[in-house]
């Protein structure tokens, strides 16, 4: 079953479990490394309560989003606590995030994974609504985007479950088994 969620998000994110498929609609905000640093220094320029932050540097042409796939979220491991403290309910990106973020998500927010490289699919579900920090350049600016049912999977839930960490730990076990079976 697929749950349809809409921003601003509230306590409904606490119901989600790692592995659940959802769609997300409504306003989201893109942010990469530079934007996280600026927001920490100057404050968050958008309403943070219930917000969703998308790790993405889109290609924008005029008022049209051409490509908007996710970037690697782990680069923002040490730069995300303040967003969650301010009431952000979802981080969206690819590849998962570290233990520190998992602790910061507990009891309040989720990490949602979007399929890496799917820039055209993402763009087809997006309408551009505005921009903050335009001086940081196209990739690093904070773009306000309205989503129409972007398909996502819950990678990390608010209860300490992490799909990526589980897969990686099983992969290590299977590799050890391959080494034994094949006398590598």
């Amino acid at each position, binding site marked *: 079953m697929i749950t349809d969620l809409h921003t601003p998000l509230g306590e409904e994110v606490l119901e989600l479990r790692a592995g659940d498929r959802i769609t997300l609609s409504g306003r989201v905000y893109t942010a990469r490394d530079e934007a996280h640093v600026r927001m920490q220094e100057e404050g968050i320029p958008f309403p943070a309560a219930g917000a969703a932050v998308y790790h993405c540097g889109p290609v924008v042409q005029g008022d049209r989003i051409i490509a908007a796939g996710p970037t690697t979220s782990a680069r923002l491991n040490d730069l995300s606590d303040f967003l969650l403290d301010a009431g952000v309910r979802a981080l969206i990106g690819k590849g998962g995030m570290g233990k520190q973020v998992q602790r910061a998500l507990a009891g309040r927010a989720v990490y949602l994974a979007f399929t890496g490289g799917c820039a055209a699919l993402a763009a087809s579900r997006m309408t551009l609504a505005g921009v903050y920090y335009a001086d940081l350049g196209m990739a690093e600016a904070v773009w306000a985007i309205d989503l129409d049912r972007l398909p996502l*999977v819950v990678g990390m839930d608010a209860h300490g479950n992490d799909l990526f960490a589980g897969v990686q730990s099983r992969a290590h076990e299977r590799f050890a088994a391959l080494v034994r079976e094949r006398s590598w």
Partner: protein
Amino acid sequence: MSFPEHAGFLESLAVAVESALKEAEIGLPHDVLQALISASARETDPTARAELENICANIREAKNRQVPLCQDTGVPVIFLTLPEGWGYTAAMEEAVRTGIERATASVPLRPNVVNPLSRCNTGTNTGTRMPDVHVRRGDHVSVTVLPKGAGSENVSRIGMLLPSERDAVGRFVAETMLLAGGRPCPPVVLGVGIGGTFDTAASLAKEALLQPIDSMTAFEQDLCNAVNDLGIGPMGLGGDTTALAVKVLCADCHTASLPVAVNVQCWACRRATRRVEE
């Protein structure tokens, strides 16, 4: 045959490079598309199946909108085939650059090429010793482009194994994927170069990515099965499909050496070829 420095030929070469880049960035080759569709039909893990469905939907959207599949439009790796008696000239190199610069503006491509130390962007997707041009011999002039993204390139590895460790080739290939996890945007294609010298192995690994992935030798299939046994799955979220294919190229090597290189390629295994009229 016309003289290879002829302006008409050089313009045809530039046009071929631009046109091949446009095709490669917007759509996948038939064999890769089929591999993704069959993987999606075969996949037993629901999360993995949803990821593969997103990838297939993305391919359709890119085609409908005539936009690049991925915002990382890569750096252009060029394979130029020249007939016997032809040399790769400075004018041909210039024509290849012109084709890349035109494609950067017309597709458009993200400017990805920077100085490695100052990180200053050239803005054109060309630069010092960039693009990397591999010259091969053939019956006619043709150009193949392989736009290479960084997420998968960054987890590629080379190892100088011990000659007594022939079985360790499989271990090295599987270990490369274990260390990479979800970072290279699996399902991947692995290009494996075995033998030659240090640099030959890496070059063969890249060239292996040009081969169609709709068939594998028994050796390649065995390596592919081992990688899929890891269960990393699409995007590292788990599942049956970690690698679509493993392709291997070999060169003879020193009796005391066993170089092995693994060039990792994300699901967007982009390549396109154009024949250039001589």
